[in-house]
């Protein structure tokens, strides 16, 4: 019978709790079951519009460079392999595998078929109100491998985000 004590300060560790991906995945499953598939996209859109509002603002001011910086930060943190090409009018990025999908599978959980919305709905919402549109060119639900494109809209009207399954 043991007596144990552990004292940790925030600075003792790196903030990276990958099991949060599982919780989100289960959350998406619950929303779909209770309110339908459209509700999943709507929830993620609302979240992204609110939480990533500073990023959208930066994209309006500084263009795609702000998004590039965001993507580099996120994938470096999660140790995901990513290739980005970026010009003034277009950013294209390829993800070899999605670190979230990989972790969920590694833990033995099934990935929600709507996990794709964590790309499509989220980046679509980030682009709303900016001069850019998002396109999910390719997506593999098994690995989360994807090709995504952000490009400057052709006219001043803010189109809906174009996506492919």
């Amino acid at each position, binding site marked *: 019978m043991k007596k*144990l004590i*552990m*004292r940790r300060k925030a600075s003792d560790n790196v903030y990276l709790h990958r099991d949060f991906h599982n919780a989100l995945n289960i959350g998406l499953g*619950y929303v779909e079951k*209770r309110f339908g598939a459209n509700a999943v996209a709507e929830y993620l859109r609302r*979240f992204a519009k609110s*939480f990533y509002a500073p990023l959208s603002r930066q994209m309006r001011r500084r263009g795609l460079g702000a998004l590039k910086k965001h993507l580099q930060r996120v994938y470096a*943190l999660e140790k995901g392999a990513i290739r980005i090409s970026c010009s003034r009018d277009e950013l294209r990025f390829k993800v070899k595998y999605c670190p979230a999908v990989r972790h969920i599978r590694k833990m033995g959980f099934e990935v929600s078929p709507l996990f794709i919305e964590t*790309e499509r709905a989220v980046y679509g919402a980030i682009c709303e109100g900016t001069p850019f549109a998002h396109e999910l060119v390719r997506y593999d639900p098994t690995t989360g491998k994807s090709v995504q494109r952000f490009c400057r809209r052709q006219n001043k009207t803010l189109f809906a985000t174009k996506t492919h399954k």
Partner: protein
Amino acid sequence: MISCTDFIAAYSELFEFLEKRGGEKAVNDFWNYLSDHYLAKTLKRLVKKHGIRGCWLYWKQTLNEEAADFTMELDEAAGIFRITMHRCPSKWHLLKWRHIKPYPEYCLHCDHLYRRILEPMGYRYHLDLTESGRARCSLVVTRKSIKDKG
């Protein structure tokens, strides 16, 4: 991809979304669902295998990965497990992000999720959230004695 470092904001927004769609019941139902589908495979398995030390093993991993500021104590013989959260990383992030409005009852999920697992397994679960507005809380899990159970 939503980075796991941004998850807390997504979680808080999910509670908000559920409450708007289905009221408090939808939020509570989700917490039950998450507890049954996630914690049953993690915390419950550990406690089943190791007794109260399962709590230590579960929170040792999560709190370190979440970079929490905490003191954790286990007295196996007395059947007591305690967490003193000096700064909860989730609540701290929610308080820090000024551009979003956190779900007002955010901290209640901790009371709901773990109680649902531990009480049926023969443990008392007490979570003190009186200082949650300062990202502090304390949790005590105690093993019920045979007399208590009767």
